């Protein structure tokens, strides 16, 4: 099987932008994703809007609210992926809370997602202990279930790393998503611990927004995930955001290549 996620990590450090679907509308999301791919993104995270996202800071919360207000429905995600697949083979991973998947029926969701061309799922409110809920279905439909680890859980880091697939989403700091002025060194220790126990690539996210931060983290991680900084540009510029987002992605990719 052609493993698109693995490809993302085969050309140096991966830059992984996150974008909330349908903020402000789904056709702009399509344009943004294609522009980010052209600007050097190695994998794209598509956020499924949800009204009660307990791991998100205000920037992504508000993006979710705008997306839901635009009338986004789950099947719009599959349509979006299908349309993207006419243009690109970039690995696509969906970031969603569990309930929309559960409500849509997990097998129906995963089958539609696979047919459309999705490669993986990140479910922040599905800790490792509860993965049984969906793991079998992901396997059946050949969608990678990406696990998250955080610096506070040493034993869990080891267990989760050993059982990981696709890539490991390393939560850089405590708290919710959002831009932070300074990041702690906890992320480095966590990544080193994870790497000591598995070969799965480690991408670090939460709080990263400057090229300097990205550069520093890329010295020990395999990839950098950036969400709020991008969603912030979209919140400010709306339909005019394609160019500034592209420039930002170029700049960030540049920062982790050197």
């Amino acid at each position, binding site marked *: 099987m052609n493993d698109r996620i693995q490809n993302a990590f085969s050309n140096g450090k991966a830059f992984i932008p996150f974008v909330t679907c349908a903020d402000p509308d789904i056709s702009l999301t399509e344009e943004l994703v294609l522009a980010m791919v052209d600007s050097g993104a190695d994998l794209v995270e598509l956020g499924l809007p949800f009204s*009660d996202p307990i791991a998100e800071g205000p920037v992504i919360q508000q993006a979710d609210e705008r997306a839901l207000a635009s009338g986004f429905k789950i099947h719009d995600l599959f349509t979006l992926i299908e349309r993207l697949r006419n243009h690109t083979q970039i690995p696509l991973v969906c970031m969603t809370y*569990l309930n*929309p998947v559960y409500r849509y029926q997990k097998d129906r969701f995963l089958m539609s997602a696979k047919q459309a061309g999705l490669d993986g799922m990140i479910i922040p409110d599905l800790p490792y202990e509860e993965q049984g809920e969906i793991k079998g279905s992901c396997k059946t439909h050949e969608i990678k279930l990406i696990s998250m680890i*955080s610096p*506070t859980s040493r034993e869990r880091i080891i267990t989760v790393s050993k059982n990981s697939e696709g890539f490991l989403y390393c939560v850089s700091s405590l*708290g*919710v998503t959002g831009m932070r002025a300074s990041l702690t060194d906890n992320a480095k220790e966590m990544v080193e611990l994870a790497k000591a126990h598995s070969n799965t690539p480690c991408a670090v996210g939460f709080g990263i927004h400057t090229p300097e931060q990205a550069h520093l983290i890329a010295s020990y991680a395999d990839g950098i995930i950036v969400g709020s900084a991008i969603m912030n540009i979209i919140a400010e510029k709306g339909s005019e955001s394609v160019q500034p987002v592209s420039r930002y992605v170029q700049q960030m990719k540049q920062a982790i290549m050197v």
Partner: protein
Amino acid sequence: MQNILTKEINTTNLPDSNGRFGEFGGSYIPPQLQTVMDEVTKEYENIVQDPVFLEELSSLQRHYVGRPSPVYHAKRLSEAVGGAQIYLKREDLNHTGAHKINHCIGEVLLAKKMGKKKVIAETGAGQHGVALATAAALLGLECDIYMGEVDIKKEAPNVSRMKILGAQVIEVTRGTKTLKDAVDAAFEAYLEDPDTQIYCIGSVVGPHPFPMMVRDFQSVVGIEAKAQIQELAGRLPEAVVACVGGGSNAMGIFSAFLEDSEVTLYGVEPAGKGLDTPDHAATITKGSVGILHGFKSFLLQDESGEALPVYSIASGLDYPGVGPQHSYLKTIGRVNYDSATDHEAVEAFYGLSRMEGIIPALESSHAVAHAIKLAKTMKKDEIILVNLSGRGDKDIDYVLEHYPLVEYEPTGKGNGFEEFLSHIKKQ
């Protein structure tokens, strides 16, 4: 009365070590929060074995909260209804006027043992916020209360109470600006700093161990009530009735009777303006299984899995989810879940006020309303025990404004109860 047990039930030793009540409950939270919850669980399991903690809790319950709260035989109400005898567990007489103080004292004591400086929580109508602010003042901890903008406007007296007690009331302006969004905001604040603060959730909801912990702290209600009714009536009641929003007062009183199969348990959900309208919060009656705020349970949700906006005249019942143990007890058939409309709750509110001189909270009025319905179908020597979870001072202005008595002049003749109730203005 027939008991409703159809299956062999396992109601003891739940939740399991993963926080499961059957398929419900669990812990659906980001990994950075899971570690924190594990720590809370561990600490909680330690303190419940600690005689010093238990002694401190029990002493505060007695000398500060005013426990045990009495069980009272509502003779005039029972007579007027004309059926079973209605007894009330008077949680409205607790310090701060509701059952919420029971788990707040427990949670703040736990926070103190864990060396936390601050307790945080969400509140809807403000009852949980006031109770937590009270416990925090008592035990010398800081307190932040997250409250929806809409609720802050509606519940001004409780906002003032919290401020006087030294709590910081933080306005939540996202989403529906009500309880559900206040929960989201409180979770986020907790994630930002789980080291110095602890989230004291307001009901038997949220990720493990909250549903267990809050139930355990509330179980004092059931333990007392069971002994009291046996002393008063010489036996167990035929029925126990409690209102269910998140379900903390109901779990408190039900927990003592779960193994007594001869006692039928009734949870009463808010039917609002009617179950056939969108304006209700009858989660178990009308919802489907889903995952919100870190746990799996029945949930009022749309086809995309988004929580629906919910409504009840009683803000304390206005939540799209319900405690996972309730979903479990529904599924195994141990508890009957029914509902009462706004109007039925208001009838009970006036009824209890006029017949017994007790003004119940609109939340608790749902339980009284169901007890009145039930009593009519039962014999005079049968007993219904109602958890009167809170007092109605907070609701008096609202009721008088929206449900005034129309053209009512007491004649003092005959059994005027039904006649009196017919004068409450219909919406």
